[in-house]
């Protein structure tokens, strides 16, 4: 084979191999046996403030299920304790995931309660809009995911999230957040936090199913979402939400 022939063949071979590979990939990407179809689902969560006892087991379960680092204080879900005094002052503190001693009793309390928080899986997510590399996106069944292979750890999304639901994972150095335990829900299981909640303060369900507990929950309670004025259209629905909760 002379040089001319070699170059000629090479010019033909590489693009042809590329085209072939492309076709092969497309063929493989065809939807498989079609058991779970995300188009038939849209997930959301209900939170009943009137039932939360602030035990923090949801935080612990989430960390165990999702390998969230124990230290420092990073969480995909957390619980805030509100104390509203008679003089109108409001204090908010995130409760510890660890089992703790009974809290000191405060005086002049008008009302006090716990508010579980997590990613709101917005229908209109600000975090997705700001990502410069398209690493975060909403799935068809309504869960916002992060592609940890693509994420460059620039923290824009962490800044953009109005609910503070994202953090930078100290080991992978990529953004991390609640996925509604995506690996569980696609198998028909409940998210770990819902699984362990002792008082059913968290209700998980499929908004596309008329018979889901969540749909019933949103109908029999007066529902609020967090920061509705931002137009993020959250899919975490709160019952008995106090006006002071931000």
């Amino acid at each position: 084979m002379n040089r001319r022939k070699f170059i000629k063949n090479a010019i033909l071979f590489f693009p042809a191999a590329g085209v072939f590979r492309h076709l092969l990939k497309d063929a493989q990407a065809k939807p498989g046996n079609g058991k779970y179809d995300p188009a038939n689902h849209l997930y959301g969560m209900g939170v009943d403030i009137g039932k939360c006892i602030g035990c923090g087991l949801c935080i612990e379960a989430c960390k165990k299920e999702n390998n969230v680092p124990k230290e420092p204080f990073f969480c995909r879900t957390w619980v805030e304790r509100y104390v509203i005094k008679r003089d109108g002052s409001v204090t908010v503190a995130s409760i510890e995931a660890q089992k703790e001693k009974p809290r000191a009793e405060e005086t002049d309390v008008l009302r006090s309660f716990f508010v579980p928080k997590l990613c709101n899986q917005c229908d209109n997510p600000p975090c997705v809009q700001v990502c410069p590399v398209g690493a975060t996106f909403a799935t068809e069944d309504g869960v916002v995911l992060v592609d940890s292979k693509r994420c460059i750890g620039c923290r824009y999304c962490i800044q953009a999230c109005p609910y503070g639901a994202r953090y930078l994972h100290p080991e992978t150095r990529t953004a991390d957040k609640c996925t509604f335990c995506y690996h569980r829900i696609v198998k028909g299981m409940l998210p770990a936090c819902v699984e362990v909640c002792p008082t059913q303060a968290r209700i998980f369900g499929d908004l596309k199913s008329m018979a889901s507990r969540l749909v019933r929950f949103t109908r029999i309670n007066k529902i609020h979402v967090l920061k509705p004025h931002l137009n993020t259209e959250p899919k975490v629905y709160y019952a008995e939400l106090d006006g002071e909760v931000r």
Partner: protein
Amino acid sequence: MKDMLKRIPEQIKRLAVVIAVIITGVVTVRYFILPSSLTDGRFHRQSTVERETAKNIVFAGATICGNCHGDKAEKKKAGYHKTVNCETCHGPAQSHIENPANKPAMSGGRDFCVFCHAYDQSRPTGFPQINPVLHNPLKACITCHNPHDPVPSQTPRECSACHAQIASIKTVSPHALIGCTSCHNVPEKHKVSPRSVRPTKPDTREFCGKCHRKESDRKDAPKIDLATHGERFLCWECHYPHRPERM
């Protein structure tokens, strides 16, 4: 035209050829040789979804424990701890399911119960709370309360005294005038030992059909076609029976 081409210096022409080759090269690499998962958003999303889906399950779920620990599950189902799942107390147990020799956590100490039951002013009123310093301080909780069926304490009479939430919801609903006992048969003993003596609950679609089927002679109730309406679901999977709505 030919003149123009001729007037271009030889070195520029060669340069142009080189640039053209580079451009075709880049285009080939970008569109044909690189795997499409690198360039197409659809594929990288798909692979992210697959990666998420493949993650390990740690909590086995509430329903499976009863397969092997039926006695515990039965007991718990009727007691005050019925909403507290096994894994809430025993910790994640998927590895136990796969191999029962991996024993789940067992914390019989006082600290564990106190974690949920100690008095805290932020807790909802009505949730049973104790003062751990005063409540039988020297013994483990499980010496007096079975963790799978903690003992109830004494309670009062009227339906609304114990089912206040249901009663107050019902008074403002279309079913306001339908008494509790037209849907539930309540043995008198239920008011004394409510958990061991249970009222009946409607369990068929036909029950609601008594008033709501097309053929029913109850005039004030809106009618539906029992055969097709709501398909195979029970009525109360969609309508809350104590406050039914049209939706």
